[in-house]
């Protein structure tokens, strides 16, 4: 081990510690914000639990049962303490532990996001490189136009068209609704995941490939790529050894962001396909004012964001040669 690499590993450890500490601090802030925001939701959960037939006495009773009559700060501290012990609380609406409701949803969301990314990342890299090397060619223009079209349609419209195309009207290849049997493992029911996964892939690829394309074009214009050509390296080797590795870091950063975003941010897509994911769980919980579920779901989404960010930063750090620094 050289001095330089030892120094680098020492810095990466220190950097990682600092980075994680910061993430934890920010998560605390985020958790507080989440708590405040959710507590401020109007509408009384007791009323929703009871429906419109509730009488004032009944409402008061439910409120007491749910600790809703405690001061907000007390509720927050209780929530945080329980959270640190791994207890996300109990759903106000269904009276089962929040984890029972969210855990399967989280697994589902992570599964389809991972599945879609497993396709989207290689496809984006391939398309990005292909179109960058044939910049302004027919393929580049066509793919770019297609990606702009896809992006210009609101997500649910895209989903709608895909359902018409693949499920109900033109072809009947995939089921339109992701009716997952909760009893069976999700990976045994892949046909039912096809539609949301295809939609996710389309959205991810159209974003990611453009980024890869831009980066590859930038790298292709660097002096070191020109020098590699003047050295007599083959275009293949230039592409794979000189261009691609240097275009990878921004792509990985973006892929991380997309991953984090897709886990909780594609409510609309989950909704269109009736997919039992984190996003719909959250949207439903907001509608039901099931505050513990909302809090846990939003927290999971932000934790995902920070964790994925740290992971992509570490990967970027690893891929970035020493001396140039892993930090942006």
């Amino acid at each position, binding site marked *: 081990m050289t001095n330089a690499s030892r120094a680098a590993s020492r810095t990466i450890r220190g950097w990682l510690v600092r980075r994680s500490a*910061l993430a934890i601090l*920010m998560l605390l*802030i*985020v958790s507080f*914000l989440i708590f405040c*925001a*959710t507590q*401020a*939701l*109007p*509408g009384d959960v007791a009323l929703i639990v009871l429906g419109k037939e509730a009488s004032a006495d009944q409402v008061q009773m439910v409120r007491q049962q749910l600790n809703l009559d405690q001061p907000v700060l007390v509720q927050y501290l209780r929530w945080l303490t329980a959270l640190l012990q791994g207890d996300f609380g109990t759903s106000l609406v269904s009276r089962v532990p929040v984890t029972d409701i969210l855990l399967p949803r989280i697994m589902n969301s992570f599964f389809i996001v991972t599945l879609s990314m497993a396709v989207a990342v290689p496809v984006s890299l391939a398309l990005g490189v292909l179109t960058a090397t044939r910049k302004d060619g027919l393929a580049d223009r066509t793919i770019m136009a297609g990606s*702009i*079209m896809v*992006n*210009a*349609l*609101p*997500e*649910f*419209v895209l989903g*709608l068209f895909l359902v*018409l195309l693949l499920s*109900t*009207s033109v072809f009947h290849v995939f089921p339109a609704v992701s009716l997952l049997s909760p009893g069976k493992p999700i990976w045994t029911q892949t046909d039912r995941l096809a539609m949301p996964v295809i939609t996710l892939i389309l959205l991810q690829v159209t974003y990611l490939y453009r980024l890869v394309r831009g980066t590859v074009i930038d790298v292709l214009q660097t002096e070191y790529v020109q020098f590699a050509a003047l050295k007599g390296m083959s275009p293949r080797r230039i592409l794979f050894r000189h261009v691609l590795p240097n275009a990878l870091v921004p792509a990985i950063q973006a892929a991380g*962001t997309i991953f984090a*975003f897709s886990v*909780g*941010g*594609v*409510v*609309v897509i989950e*909704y269109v396909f009736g997919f039992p994911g984190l*996003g719909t769980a*959250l*949207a439903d919980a*907001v*509608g039901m004012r099931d505050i513990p579920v*909302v809090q846990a779901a*939003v927290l999971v*989404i*932000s934790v995902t*964001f*920070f964790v994925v*960010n740290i992971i992509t930063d570490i990967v970027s750090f690893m891929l970035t040669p020493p001396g140039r620094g892993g930090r942006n």
Partner: protein
Amino acid sequence: MTPSLSRRTGSQSALVRGLRNSRSLIGLGMIGAIIALAIVGPALAPYSPSELVGVPYDIPNPDTLLGTDSLGRDVLSRFLYGGRNLVWMAIAATTLGLSIGIAIGMASAYFKGMTDEILMRLVDIQLAFPSVVFALLFVTMLGPSPLLLVILVGVSQAPSVARITRGAALGVVERDYVQWARAVGIPTRRILMSEVLPNITSPLLVELGLRLMWSISLLAGLSFLGYGIQPPNADWGLMVNESRNALTIQPWAVLAPILAIATLSIGGNMFAEGMSRAIGRTEGTK
């Protein structure tokens, strides 16, 4: 040519140069067409947007050229009325998002140090909430008013604009003309506005196109979830949402607004890309 000190000449000619690019012209044309449609549309509408003129989901016929919607209202009239909300909201939200993002990004890049750190962490916190989730929470809290939607969509766009701006501005703030302005004591706000900002327009224009698309998509998505513009308003996003189930029996109620929305999105994108290409080329990237 007479010597001129006017800065307006400068930006004008940049605009003119940008518009020589066919893409930006077409894009501007598309945006202009949709804005024009949104403005003059109501004057052209044969019926009032809420008037009940036929049976639900009637197909196009001489009385209702694009058929009727779920309540038997004239799709054409609703389409002609429906642009105003989405267009102004999308444009306002994008403008707001860009303004906040640019302000944060430039301040972060210029002041560096603690300011940078704090601002970027704020941006991280905001980014940790996906925009739909963010909007969902606040719309539920405060009720779906157009102004709130604009603010929410705008604010949720700001972080990524801030990051892009910061990235672009980091290179610019080190440039000697900015340093010179600092050295001669030009006020910071003016340095940022007239020395830094004009030189990061290329990435920001691209971002403008992207943000416009996102704003439209987000507004429409919120409509879909029932958190957007509320009935009985005529609104393109709402129209799509109201009639989406009937796509197979009365496609126009969905397709007409989608086409308009997509045209606006694509137009914004093309304009931005064309401008950035044109400006990038004439500035000579040195």
